[in-house]
């Protein structure tokens, strides 16, 4: 087995991983950085983000507003000290990206422009047309080439963490092109592997979003926090799940049901006005909008499409072709290519789909996990800014702010430690290699990867969808246990070494099953409704007495996860009723009154 000695290894080349790599390189150019990614970094799913990244920009805005939008949006399950840090760093990091060349859209006088986004009181979403993630990712990837200390391991697949003397000391990777294993030693290990939404059926996510890093940390005893909170994005393409960004609504798009009625006014988001108004109607938060869809469907007010199923319409026609081309060019193209319709002339059929995992690897404000030397950042992590519901455009900023934090701290940590004992690490790496080679070479399996994956995804949708009930969640938990058993009998067609994606897909499925279990078991134990976790079986209300708590799922080998609870850090914002539309404005006024 080849051995590579680094100081810091980063698993994940998306926005978070790249930002961290640059931070390490800038902190100390003498540190050797290994950047591992199972796809070329610019293919990472950050590339698909459309709408933009939040950071205070306008003179009428303030850190305090951004803080309150985020904490209220998260239904008070945020770590408030971390959010305070986040909102202050946001504009600095977004400006840094501008200096690195990110082509943010601009106003006529040449400054960076900002747009409205759901749940945000003031326009503060920096955007690069509707390809914000694409531009952020390519800017970071290209900028990272400036630093000779970053050694990339492109198309290398991480299969294990190495742990010795109570701390994390490296990773085991497979070079996908050859099937060969290597061990990368490091004194700091940063996981930046992105979300896990692919455990569900219909999602906005790329095929690579399989929760690998979450499962890796989890198997090494680190808690996965708040995993029951999974965001459904309200405006997605039926069947494929592809996303129509929230910016469609930020720019003025409206949602109507089969009667052409703006139904959101029936769900505490009104009243209707002609112009888009922040935190009203279509600019309410995602959880509320997806929930409203569910009830419209129950009431028989959705449009029933023979092929697409139940849909409502996203109507952009009044914005006009020219404006749509300028502000939403990707959306325009997607509607034309994938649905054969012209958004300037036709309303777009949409429905909710899984989009984001609020929970993740539990880390503190320095992005450090309970296992020493291990850090987690980006969508795979739970640093505490999203709570029970993420506000759109907070996560791209999160990648930058906490990518930097982790990079700086990982550099400091690496410098403070002596190298580990290679021999003992190598032994572990070899054991991992044997286990995975056995999976590949095993014959006589009868279970198909695609079948197990499909059953898992369907079961997650059935039990852990927009609304949840004990009996369906229990059925999902049982199904997942059954699939875990059946996975042991998996069959892998491809026995070759070069580019064996059949084998690696099985490894991913193994990760996914772990992550799905952590979600379903955390969900069934939360006997309340909060943010994206909504129940219809007698727990319709938020219960701050018993559940103003983070859930923490711990891995138990061969068994279901153990669920524990941790405190939520509250600094200045006491839990209050979470209201939008006119009621929200009233509550804001009262809050101001009481502060004065």
């Amino acid at each position, binding site marked *: 087995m080849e051995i590579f000695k680094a100081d810091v290894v980063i698993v994940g080349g998306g926005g978070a991983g790249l930002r961290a790599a640059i931070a390490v390189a800038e902190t100390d150019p003498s540190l050797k950085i290994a950047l591992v990614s199972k*796809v*070329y970094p*610019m*293919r*990472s*799913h950050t*590339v*698909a983000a459309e709408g933009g990244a939040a950071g205070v920009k306008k003179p009428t805005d303030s850190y305090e507003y951004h803080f309150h939008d985020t904490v209220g949006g998260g239904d008070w399950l945020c770590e408030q000290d971390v959010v305070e840090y986040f909102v202050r760093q946001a504009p*600095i990091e977004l*400006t*840094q990206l*501008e*200096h*690195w*060349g990110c*082509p*943010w859209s*601009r106003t*006529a*006088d*040449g*400054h*960076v422009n900002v747009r409205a986004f759901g749940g945000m009181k003031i326009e503060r979403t920096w955007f690069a047309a509707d*390809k914000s993630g*694409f*531009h952020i990712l*390519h800017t970071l990837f*290209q*900028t990272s*080439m*400036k630093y000779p200390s970053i050694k990339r391991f*492109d198309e290398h697949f991480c299969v294990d963490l190495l742990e010795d003397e109570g701390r994390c000391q490296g990773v085991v990777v497979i070079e996908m*092109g050859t099937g060969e294993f290597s061990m990368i030693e490091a004194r700091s290990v940063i996981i930046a592997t992105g979300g896990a939404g692919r455990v569900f059926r219909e999602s906005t996510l*790329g*095929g*690579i979003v399989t929760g690998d890093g979450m499962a890796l940390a989890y198997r090494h005893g680190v808690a996965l926090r708040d995993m029951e909170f999974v965001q459904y994005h309200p405006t997605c393409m039926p*069947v*494929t799940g*592809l*996303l129509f960004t929230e910016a469609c609504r930020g720019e003025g798009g409206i949602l109507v049901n089969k009667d052409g009625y703006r139904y959101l006014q029936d769900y505490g988001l009104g009243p209707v006005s002609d112009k888009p108004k922040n935190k009203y109607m279509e600019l309410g938060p995602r959880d509320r909008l997806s929930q409203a869809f569910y009830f419209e469907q129950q009431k028989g007010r959705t449009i029933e499409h023979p*092929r697409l199923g139940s849909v409502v319409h996203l109507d952009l026609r009044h914005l006009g072709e020219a404006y749509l081309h300028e502000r939403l060019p*990707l959306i325009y*193209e*997607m509607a034309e*290519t*994938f649905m054969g319709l012209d958004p300037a002339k036709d309303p777009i059929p949409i429905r909710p789909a899984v989009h984001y995992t609020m929970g993740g690897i539990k880390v503190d404000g320095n992005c450090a996990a309970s296992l020493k030397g291990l850090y987690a950042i980006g969508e795979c992590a739970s640093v505490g800014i999203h709570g029970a519901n993420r506000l759109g455009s907070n996560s791209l900023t999160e990648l930058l702010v906490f990518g930097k934090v982790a990079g700086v701290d990982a550099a400091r940590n690496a410098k403070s430690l002596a190298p580990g004992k290679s021999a003992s690490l190598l032994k572990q790496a070899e054991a991992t290699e044997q286990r995975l080679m056995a999976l590949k070479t095993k014959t006589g399996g009868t279970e*198909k*990867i*695609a079948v197990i994956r499909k059953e898992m995804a369907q079961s997650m949708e059935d039990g852990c969808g927009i609304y949840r009930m004990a009996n369906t969640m229990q059925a999902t938990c049982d199904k997942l246990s059954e699939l875990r058993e059946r996975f042991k009998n998996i069959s*892998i*067609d*491809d026995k*070759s*070494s*070069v*580019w*064996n*994606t*059949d084998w690696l*897909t099985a490894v991913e499925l193994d990760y996914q099953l772990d992550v799905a279990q952590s979600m379903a078991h955390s969900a069934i134990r939360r006997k309340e409704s909060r943010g994206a976790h909504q129940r219809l079986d007698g727990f319709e209300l938020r219960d701050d007495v018993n559940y103003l708590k983070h859930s923490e799922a711990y891995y138990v080998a061969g068994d279901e996860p153990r669920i524990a609870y941790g405190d939520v850090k509250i600094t200045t914002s006491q839990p209050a009723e979470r209201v939008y539309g006119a009621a929200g404005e009233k509550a804001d006024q009262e809050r101001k009154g009481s502060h004065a």
Partner: protein
Amino acid sequence: MPDSQRIIEIEVLRYNPESDKEPHLEVYKVPFSDDMSVLQGAQYIKDHFDGSLTFRWSCRMAICGSCGMMINGIPKLSCETFLRDYFPNRIRIEAMANFPIEKDLVVDLSGFIEKLESIQPYIIPREPRSLDQGEYIQSPEQFNAYIQFTSCINCTLCYAACPQFGLNPDFIGPAAIALLHRYNMDSRDGAAAERMELVAAEEGVFNCSAVGYCSEVCPKHVDPANAVNINKTNAAKDYFLRFLSPKGGSK
């Protein structure tokens, strides 16, 4: 999922370096519906007929740049190309032309990545600015000068289309030149002169025989042919300046 019984024949160029001497074609009969992309066709084959079929993909929305292949001989993104447009005829998918095949539809991109790295694809500031000075100001004209060339998704379809790259794999090629041009045209950047050496070098723009097929196949309207063209002119100018000034032209 297919919701009708229509069946399309997909012919796939298969190659496993560990067991095949040469690439060969295999045909699969795939049930499909109107909204199924060629990528979904390949996924159907992998899930139902042969798990060893190998191809790259991720986003499914024509933005990650992973899923390029030759579709009936034309370089295309398979996620935004639809089976319905080929039915009832057979459709043939093959690895992107001009690149070495690693396995089935996966080609070796390491050379392309090295080219990207070689052009210094980052801002080398004309006037350094600290973060508390805020963002650089760019007028709409300055912005429009480079924005088109930022849209490249690195799908390498233009390389699969380029006859010159086919002849000379060292040719830096359309996308890398477009990216170089993107930074040169950015008002924040001041390193156009440094990059010029590469433009005019042996692997540079003069390889191009102005076929223009690269821009035709580009799914993102980057128009790399235009970037190459402009740089031919620039490099020619630079060449003359080098003659006039002993210290080396444009610096």
